[in-house]
């Protein structure tokens, strides 16, 4: 019964989300990743007036057989710099995806909540401690880094040539692109500290 309900519910939600206003505004998107409605691909637009503005973030959604009695498993595929999202794995720390899940919530709700999370980070309940401490101690640096990541990974508009140059210098030393960017981001773009961290 549970399998049946999970699939039939996803089918309904899917139809519904396709007709929703957010789709019309290109603010969220949902598509199937397999034929049996258990793997889906979500997409959310970065909310305006945030470092994620004009970025497009892809999400991996796995619907458990016990859905909607248990929450869907969601993580970011697109790399993102955010206190509540792991910069390495894309894992998300959000209460409704854990203990505060309710059966009346839907995938559309989840996507909208994630969008809200991008707009209102919660550094006191972090998934990524490094990002969270930067958010609290050096907010300006956090914003620039987040914008830079949005530009590189999520087609965001803000380019930071000095950041790109520093990444390039580490790459010249044989470090791969992501590791270089992650290390520099962790060390507030201090290339010496980042280099020490890597080697």
């Amino acid at each position: 019964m549970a399998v049946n309900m999970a699939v039939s519910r996803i089918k309904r939600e899917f139809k519904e989300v396709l007709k929703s206003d957010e789709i019309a505004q290109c603010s969220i998107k949902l598509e199937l990743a397999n034929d049996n409605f258990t793997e889906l691909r979500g997409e959310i637009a970065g909310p305006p007036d945030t470092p994620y503005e004009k970025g497009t973030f892809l999400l991996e959604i796995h619907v458990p057989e016990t859905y909607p009695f248990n929450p869907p498993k969601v993580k970011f595929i697109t790399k993102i710099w955010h206190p509540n999202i792991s910069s390495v794995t894309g894992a998300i720390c959000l209460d409704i995806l854990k203990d505060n899940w309710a059966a009346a919530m839907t995938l559309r709700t989840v996507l909208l909540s994630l969008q809200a999370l991008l707009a209102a980070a919660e550094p006191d309940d972090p998934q990524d401690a490094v990002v969270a401490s930067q958010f609290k101690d050096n907010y300006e640096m956090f914003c620039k880094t987040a914008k830079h990541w949005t530009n590189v990974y999520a087609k965001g508009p803000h380019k930071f040539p000095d950041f790109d140059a520093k990444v390039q210098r580490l790459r010249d030393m044989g470090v791969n692109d992501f590791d270089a960017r992650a290390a520099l981001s962790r060390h507030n773009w201090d290339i010496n500290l980042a280099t020490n961290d890597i080697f």
Partner: protein
Amino acid sequence: MNREMSADESVQAEASNNSIPKNKTGSTLNEPQRTKSLEEATQENYMCSICLSWLEDPVLTKCGHRFCSSCLNEWRTKKNSKCPMDSHDLNIEDIFPDNYTKRQITEIRKSFPEELNRPNVMIECRFSTLSCDFKTTSAGELDLHMKEGTKEHIDLLLSSYLRTQYQAWDPLDKSQSNDKEEFFRQQSSTRDLINAMFERIVILEQHTREQAIKIEALQSTEKRHGTLVWKIEDFKRKVESMQNNSNMMFYSTDAYTSPDGYKFCARINLSHKMRDYLSLHVHLRKGENDYHLSWPFIGRIKISMIHTKNAALSQHDCIMSKPEILAFHRPNEEISCRGFGFTEYAIISDIIKRGFIENDCLVIKIQMNIV
């Protein structure tokens, strides 16, 4: 903490908007007017926000949300005792069956038979009357079938049309064919009537059975007033069988001294010492009231042999219970092995001679009164 609150609120606002599918009927309907009113009808009240389908066996929560009974049960068995809509704590006593909504849904569904668009409910192809046996649970699949099955459906239409032609060649004039329609119409209304009557009969039969059980229960309490009237029928045959077998004895039905009193019965057999004498004893029986009664039984036992023609000839004997006699103690077996009464109650030939036997039946009356 702060974030939990804010995230929760935004989600709930979304969730309540969300529980109303914009259009659950798919695109197979050509009647926008009706579709719209159905849509209105199904808003919120008739939709379970767990399975997003029609409410099935709806329940209403204390906080005012409706769910299918099975959906909410399943949610609660996941150790989550909070309402899926607003996270109010829900105990089992905060959930009530919502039969009003159940009836409403039944009514609405009746008026939209083609809308049975929910899991496990089959929608038939619109050509099903032309024997297209395609069935599905999803409006989308039906849509696809309607598009892809065009050739098949035209074939069905054609063969159906040809059959109609044969019928038209039947030598029936117009008035007769009208009669035929009328006949079919009547037939279907008769069938409806029979169905309705059948349902009614089932209800009445059930009612009758319930009444019979009640009457039986009443009759059994009637016997609980301390008087046992024992009509010993087939008296001659019984005497003969007791004469042939000295261990043979007959017991009466059970009686009670009062509705909640001692249970007892009577027994006859032939005296072992004097074979022409009838013995008559009263036995206490193990009863459902024994635990609260006082033991040993203390009371008066009046035994009467009734002369049905002339009451003045009836024979009455009165005995008082004696606490030292085991027969008055609480029975350890179904029927107390000791009885009290008369080993030589009456000579059988005497009973017959004095006219106590009427229609081969002897009437013994036993009254047990607590003192």
